[in-house]
């Protein structure tokens, strides 16, 4: 049963693409609270994007359920904004039209001026005021991704799903947009679920990092609570005393421990497995 305070709850989710072959992931259980920024890290092929697609309502899980605000997620909804891996902007629309298209979908009764004003507000938030009449093909990769972010925020979703949004960007641009995202999320108290491959990005942005073991038979192995203070800055992140314990823990997992569960899982030894809760760098480990 659903408790009132769990914003998003995933129960025993599993997905297999072919009958008879081992599931990509299985026994996925986690909860996300309102306003939380959650990152999910794991090697390619562990089904991160599939989990995100299930949460977005774009794909069905083979088994298990996902609930948002006590309601089962069935099909896509304007309550959940998605920023896609590729920017997924309509190439024939201008930047403003792309955002306005989303705004019009969310607020069909608004008049043109309201839609334009609202769209411009969110374009300004990602620093794209001067590019509103450009076509996506005239923008750099970073600018395109910002339009995607503005579009997702502009529909004011209850939850934001980001599928490796900065994967294709160079390190400098990525840093700038990460800062912007951090700022916008703290201003709007947005609940975010984000896939990333970048450990530093996860430490900078998230409150909670879910580590997935390798697929097939992938599971959420650990849930790592970010032990760095809330007001993190990219520039000073690596000076924080908690930074290295945190980073080492994550990298160690990806390099060494991510294989362990897969072996046990394929042998069927993991029924009822619950992820370990860790707070790297803190003396008193919390176990569940």
């Amino acid at each position: 049963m659903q408790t009132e305070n769990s914003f998003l709850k995933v129960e025993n989710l599993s997905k297999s693409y072919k009958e008879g072959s081992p599931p990509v992931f299985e026994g996925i259980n986690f909860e996300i609270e309102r306003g939380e920024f959650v990152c999910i890290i794991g090697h390619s092929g562990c089904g991160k994007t599939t989990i995100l697609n299930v949460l977005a309502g774009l794909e069905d899980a083979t088994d298990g359920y996902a609930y948002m605000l006590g309601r089962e997620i069935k099909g896509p909804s304007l309550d959940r904004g998605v920023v896609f891996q590729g920017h997924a902007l309509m190439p024939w629309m201008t930047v403003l039209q792309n955002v306005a298209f989303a705004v019009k979908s969310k607020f069909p009764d608004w008049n043109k001026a309201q839609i334009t004003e609202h769209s411009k507000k969110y374009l300004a938030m990602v620093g794209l005021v001067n590019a509103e009449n450009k076509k996506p093909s005239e923008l750099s990769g970073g600018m395109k991704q910002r339009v995607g972010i503005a579009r997702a925020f502009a529909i004011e979703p209850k939850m934001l799903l980001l599928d490796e949004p900065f994967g294709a960007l160079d390190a400098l641009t990525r840093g700038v947009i990460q800062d912007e995202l951090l700022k916008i999320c703290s201003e709007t108290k947005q609940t975010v679920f984000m896939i990333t491959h970048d450990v530093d990005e996860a430490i900078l942005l998230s409150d909670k990092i879910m580590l997935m073991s390798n697929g097939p038979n992938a599971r959420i192995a650990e849930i790592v609570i970010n032990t760095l203070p809330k007001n993190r800055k990219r520039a000073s992140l690596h000076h924080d005393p908690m930074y290295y314990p945190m980073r080492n823990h994550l990298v160690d997992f990806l390099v060494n421990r991510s294989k362990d569960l897969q072996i046990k899982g394929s042998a069927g030894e993991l029924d009822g497995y619950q992820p370990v809760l860790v707070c790297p760098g803190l003396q008193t480990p919390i176990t569940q």
Partner: protein
Amino acid sequence: MNKLSVKTRGMILSVVILLMALCIWHVVTAPKVVSNPVALTGSSEYQALMGQGAGTTVEKSGFPTLTKMGETFYQQLSHPFYDNGPNDKGIGIQLAYSLARVGLGFLLAMVVAIPFGFLIGMSPLAYEAFNPFIQILKPISPLAWMPIALYTIKDSSISGIFVIFICSVWPMLLNTAFGVANVRKELLNVTKTLEVSPMRKAFLVILPAAAPTILTGMRISMGIAWLVIVAAEMLVGGTGIGYFLWNEWNNLSLSSVIFAIIMIGLVGMLLDIAFAKLQKAVSYAD
């Protein structure tokens, strides 16, 4: 010379090629003065009867000379819209008939092919169901439909339009289906997460996304339609550039036939340019 752009140099070269071709034409069709060996030996009375002077004769080519062509062009183009009854109409009127038939048949084909192509492109089931019929009907020469069209429609002019319809419909249908089926999945996922209504999705996402492919199909269709209308009008007669051409052949007026051929080429080129412009207008950079 080197400073001129490739385009200008190409144009100069085109003019040179044209002049050379005209030169060859002139030389080949020029009246030749030939000595007549028969004249030396045969009966001079017989030769006089045959219209051959003694000693030499002027052999005229059956092919029109450039001067004759110039006269035909001048005559036809100075009064393009005259109408002296069923067998004698200006080139403008004949072209207008052909263009009207092509336009009507093409429009009808659009009305059928684009919505139907949308359906087939959106639904894999519809695609599988209709594909065998399309594959069989597509390679049939449009003129093969003519007897059936004439029998059922009982009107030669409308039969011509039907033939244009049937030849234009396939490239448009297949290209529309292909364009619609290949809209990037990402974009469709965006419309799904935005809960866009089916109508908005069709007109604001799928149609613009598929428009360049659809326009390519329309351009191919128009090219085929213009090829077919000439043959169709030769067959059904009455009016149109194809009928004009065949009529002038029956008159043994080769200069008018050549004139008609050049006109067909020019109009076909203009149609293609128009569609290329349209294609450019709806295309987008990814």
